[in-house]
């Protein structure tokens, strides 16, 4: 069974975490002296009895971020012997698939991701739409990307296809030869240059409790530091020990849908983002296609009904406003598209401090795509009365005759609202300091925070303040949100970061520059499926 890392307060499971829990003092462990020292010498590590493994480049995480970064490095000519990916995951898509599956995007459903955002293909060509059209011998997806977003919803790929293609690319670049299983405890700078990355391998896998990877370069892609529940939801769950009827969309909650199929019930859905849309689709599909008799009450904290921006401006600037209606703010992807390569990317690249934070705010905010299928379902639900809207916040939740009594605070006063289930789709993210490794880097590694509080990275994605001799420490993904490049926590964002990291490493002599000739020859290898 999956176990939560007790130190992080996260709802994401760490596969096999029980194997890593310390049971007794064993040889080769971290000492108090090591933990108190910011710069480690080789002697200090040797004195603790921790074996040292030398490898030039280490990527910590082993999810999609590590995958695309090592993909870039391999295409840039770096041998597998020069790279180690330290991870508790067996496959790079594992955590991602878990999160998408429980938040109601099984393999057969479509993600919220652009056609040319291919983690398995650094060129983005052929796009997913083109590949799908080719495989299915049906030009419908090509037509969709041709007329999107004006005359059709944005094309998005099926989750299953994305995972299959990542698997293909992982085999092609010999990903598993680079994988070293375990949990990373700390990364510390090494006196004399480079870093020590301390790994706790699964129990019994090694003679000592820890291994120290001594490397010139380290890359961190540890994903979301964790998810938090809204305080009132957490309080209810803890106080009443009820984890069945009040659930978070990012934890497994299939039992809710199973129960709804057999028992007519009322569900309170909280949140106005993509996850709320997905959960609503599941509830409405079950009702419309499979006969469930569910009444849905959808609670918005902020009700959008017209042009809007992420800052909640009453009159958004005419050049910075997006569409909205019925509570939702509409946006095709997680960010306005041009953050991944166009005008907004260029603009933010030049911004510092408060100005950058303000720009993030304007283009941020909770939003979801306008999809014709969802609009149709919601319209029918509103007309038939089984999809109801409420605007406000929840003052308190109490058990009441087998149901949950919510006191909903609105502009007009506090109203009682009874529901059989509450599904929290608000997705609050935890602070980076709740992640043990990141906390250690902030306290001992020289890392700092950016204007919105996450890890402060340079335009090259080098973690500012963590340099060590000729070595460099990079970070990409959600932990770096708020930097010179928005959109880091997306497929394409991870590739933008990987491209910058690979180019910076090539300048430092690690791997080759990917110019036109290498790019073309490597693409041909990708296309023909040739292992590299």
């Amino acid at each position, binding site marked *: 069974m999956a176990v939560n890392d007790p130190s992080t307060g996260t709802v994401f499971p760490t596969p096999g975490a029980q194997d890593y829990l310390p049971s007794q003092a064993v040889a080769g462990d971290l000492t108090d002296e090591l933990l108190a020292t910011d710069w480690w010498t080789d002697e200090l590590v040797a004195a603790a009895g921790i074996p040292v493994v030398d490898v030039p480049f280490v990527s910590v995480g082993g999810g999609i971020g590590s995958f695309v970064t090592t993909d870039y490095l391999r295409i840039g000519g770096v041998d597998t012997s020069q790279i180690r990916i330290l991870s508790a995951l067996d496959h790079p898509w594992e955590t991602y698939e878990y999160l998408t599956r429980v938040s109601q995007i099984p393999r057969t459903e479509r993600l919220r991701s652009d056609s040319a955002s291919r983690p398995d293909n650094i060129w983005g060509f052929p796009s997913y739409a083109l590949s799908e059209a080719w495989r299915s011998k049906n030009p419908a997806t090509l037509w969709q990307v041709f007329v999107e977003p004006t005359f059709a919803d944005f094309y998005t790929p099926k989750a299953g296809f994305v995972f299959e293609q990542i698997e293909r690319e992982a085999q092609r670049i010999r990903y598993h030869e680079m994988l070293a299983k375990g949990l990373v405890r700390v990364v510390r700078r090494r006196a004399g240059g480079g870093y020590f990355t301390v790994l706790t391998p699964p129990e019994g896998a090694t003679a000592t409790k820890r291994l120290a990877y001594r490397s010139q370069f380290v890359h961190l892609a540890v994903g979301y530091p964790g998810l938090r529940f809204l305080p009132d939801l957490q309080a209810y769950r803890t106080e009443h020990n009820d984890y069945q009827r009040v659930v978070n969309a990012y934890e497994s909650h299939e039992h809710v849908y199973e129960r709804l199929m057999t028992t007519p019930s009322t569900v309170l859905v909280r949140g106005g983002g993509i996850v709320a849309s997905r959960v609503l689709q599941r509830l409405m599909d079950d009702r419309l296609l499979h006969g469930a008799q569910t009444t849905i009450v959808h609670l918005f904290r902020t009700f959008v009904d017209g042009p809007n921006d992420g800052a909640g401006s009453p009159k958004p600037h005419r*050049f910075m406003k997006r569409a909205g209606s019925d509570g939702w703010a509409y946006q095709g992807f997680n960010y306005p598209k041009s953050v991944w390569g166009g005008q907004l990317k260029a603009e933010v690249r030049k911004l510092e401090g408060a100005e950058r934070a303000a720009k993030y705010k304007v283009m941020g905010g909770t939003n979801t795509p306008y999809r014709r299928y969802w609009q149709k379902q919601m319209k029918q639900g509103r007309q038939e009365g089984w999809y109801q809207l409420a605007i406000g916040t929840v003052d308190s939740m109490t058990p009441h005759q087998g149901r949950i009594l919510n006191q909903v605070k609105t502009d007009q006063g506090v109203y009682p609202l009874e529901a059989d289930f509450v599904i929290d789709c608000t997705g609050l993210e935890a602070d980076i300091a709740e992640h043990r490794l990141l906390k250690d880097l902030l306290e001992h590694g020289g890392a700092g925070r950016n204007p919105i509080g996450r890890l402060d990275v340079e335009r090259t994605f080098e973690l500012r303040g963590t340099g060590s001799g000729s070595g460099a420490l990079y970070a990409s993904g959600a932990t770096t949100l708020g930097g010179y490049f928005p959109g880091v926590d997306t497929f394409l964002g991870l590739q933008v970061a990987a491209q910058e990291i690979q180019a910076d490493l090539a300048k430092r002599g690690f791997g080759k520059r990917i110019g036109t000739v290498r790019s*073309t020859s490597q693409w041909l290898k990708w296309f023909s499926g040739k292992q590299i």
Partner: protein
Amino acid sequence: MLPTLNGRIQTRIFMLVVFGGLITLVITPVLPHDPDYRTTYLVLLTVLVLGVAWELVYHGLMQWRWEKDWPTLFGLLNAINEGILVWVVLELGLVPGIGDVPFSTFLVMFLLIWVFIWIWTNGPMRIFHLRWRFFGGRLV
């Protein structure tokens, strides 16, 4: 496409000079009404010069879009407004050094180049210029 103004103009010039130039070289002998190279290259130059001006217009229009993108379809349909303007300019004799250009000659040449560049920009370009799509279409 996700262009910046600078990237739009760079991509436009690169595409028309490299691919427009090559296609013109190849197709001129087989175009209707047997035009000479001077005529076809002057047409190409006209498309290029007016095109750069059009990019300023597109950039302005794009500001009204939240995503700050320029959808694939727009890139194809822009052939209509640009083609009409080039044709009008040619008809009015505003391009120095060029004689009478038959409509069919212009249309075949213009559409061939446009469609080729549109397809190339929306796909294969990324194979050869890995950084291009992440930098607003800039090549330098």
